[in-house]
């Protein structure tokens, strides 16, 4: 799913990092958002809605719509589209509103 060759853009090779999605180890590139890293790994279902448990994923990618909220390192409601992925990060699908600690 990563673009190797593009007529206009160059994507310099970035450092590979590892993070966890639902306890599974996945690869990401340094400097990309959590949402981008998931989609690069063919994962589009980010959370389930509160009332009808309907699947939700990335929509606006600019931190405006709340469709991509996930649980990151135990914290719910993280906007994964504007949060960079970090080495060792634990990302989980959020169910409903997420519990505030």
């Amino acid at each position, binding site marked *: 799913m990563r673009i190797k060759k593009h007529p*206009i853009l160059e994507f310099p090779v970035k450092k590979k990092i590892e993070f966890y999605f639902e306890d599974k180890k996945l690869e990401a590139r340094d400097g990309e958002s959590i949402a981008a890293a998931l989609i690069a790994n063919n994962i589009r279902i980010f959370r389930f809605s509160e009332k009808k448990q309907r699947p939700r994923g990335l929509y606006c990618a600019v931190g405006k719509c709340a469709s991509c909220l996930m649980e990151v390192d135990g914290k719910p409601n993280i906007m994964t589209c504007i949060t960079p992925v970090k080495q060792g990060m634990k990302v989980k699908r959020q169910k409903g509103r997420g519990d505030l600690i």
Partner: protein
Amino acid sequence: MSEDQNNLNHSTIPEFLTDILPPEERILKRPVAIIECFQEIPCNPCVDSCPQNAISIDEGINRIPQIDYDLCTGCTLCVPKCPGLAIFVVGVDKEDKTKGSVTIPYEFNDLPQIGEEVIGLNRQGKPVTPAVVKKVIVSKITDKTAVITLSLPSEFIHEVRFFKRQSSK
């Protein structure tokens, strides 16, 4: 999608293309730029791109560009400079009037090779004629927009505006 689904109310063959085309004698003399820009949009890089000052835009930047076909040398420098990729250069071989050429801006992976046989597409993307790649220019000035000249039968010079490679789907 199948063809019957292609319900195009918006034809991109502009009815008034005939109004802007240079006289046939002019095309026979040397290649010439055809500016297919028919809406008043705020844009004028074509004017500065022309070393012959053949392209002009009246008052401001919104009017439709005009080209002086006597000044145009068909050099193709304007082709990659148009942000709308709406400028093409067409020509007809002086010796053999059945042979023509079309120069097209191209911004996709895997540029064709010189001498490669490709399929000339019309403004709706339909295949109309085989063509052969005559020239491929990519330089700092073109800023990643390749300028590709195709050789094709001269009857198609006002119709072919894109191409696909034989290998592509």
